[in-house]
């Protein structure tokens, strides 16, 4: 089979920045969705069941 490689690059020269930016975008989306789900949809849905014991320890 003919090799169609026109240029061979080293390990560190490989630079898939497009893939990297997609993954970064995915991380950001995941973080925002987590914050929204936990702090707005869950904690914001007061009243929430809490335990008095922990309050004593914290307070």
């Amino acid at each position, binding site marked *: 089979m003919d090799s169609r490689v026109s240029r061979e690059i080293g*390990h*560190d020269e*490989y630079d*898939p920045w497009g*893939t*990297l930016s997609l*993954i*970064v975008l995915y*991380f950001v989306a*995941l*973080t925002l969705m*987590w*914050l929204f789900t*936990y*702090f707005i949809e*869950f*904690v914001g*849905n*007061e*009243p*929430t*069941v*809490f*335990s*008095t014991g*922990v*309050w004593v*320890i*914290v307070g």
Partner: protein
Amino acid sequence: MRIHQYEKIWIVGAMILIVGFIVTITYGSVGLGITMIGDEEETIAPDELNDDEQFGEPRVEQVGENEYAAYVVAQTFIFQPDPIEIPANNEITFHVTSRDVIHGFYVPGTNINAMAIPGQVAKLTVEFDEPGEYGLICHEYCGSAHHTMEGLIVVQPEDEFDLTELSAETPDTVAPGDEVQLNATVENGQLEPLETTVNAEIGGQTFQRDVTVDGNSSQNVTFTVESDQLGEGEYDWSVSVDDYEETGSVEVVPNGTAETEGGEGP
């Protein structure tokens, strides 16, 4: 082993994300005190709820300063008590159990969400900041009328909330010459003593008496009128304490012609 720069970023980023998840859950649990409803409560025989000290009479009671306990029984297809009246800005601990099958205990739009399981007691502590009416529904299929099973939680402003109960009675009939006695009982379910005034009216005569009812107790107040002053006939009476009122009527008739009607308040 050589790891590519981007792979290092990926590994570190994934780690930060996982640690971030754990940190938020820990903050919620330790910082905000959010907890899960456990199964550490004692079990209870569902067919003996009527004999139980707490669930025999489903109610709200004060257990400490700014702390109340609500004992709720779910059964096909109601919640008891209904409505559940509680004060805002106080710690309310619901103890929920079922008399028959599995029910749900859910206040839509909030995180108050538990199962009412026969034999078990779900214990959940919450605090309502906003006075108002909150619906309560059963969200575990429990039978043919499951969709109609609902209750009501009435959160009253802290300064308007009380656990006062008033009951009053007179004899149905009184013979001329005897005294008409109106017995009123003021019950104070809160821990603080209740200082209030009992207003009464019997056949146009008014009475007023200041009473102090100790916490978790009741006091009897008796008002008397000479039936000779009233004369024969039927007379309305009423008793009021704060916003509570009881009414009824008493009849002054000669012995032997007494009817057995009227008398006790509603």
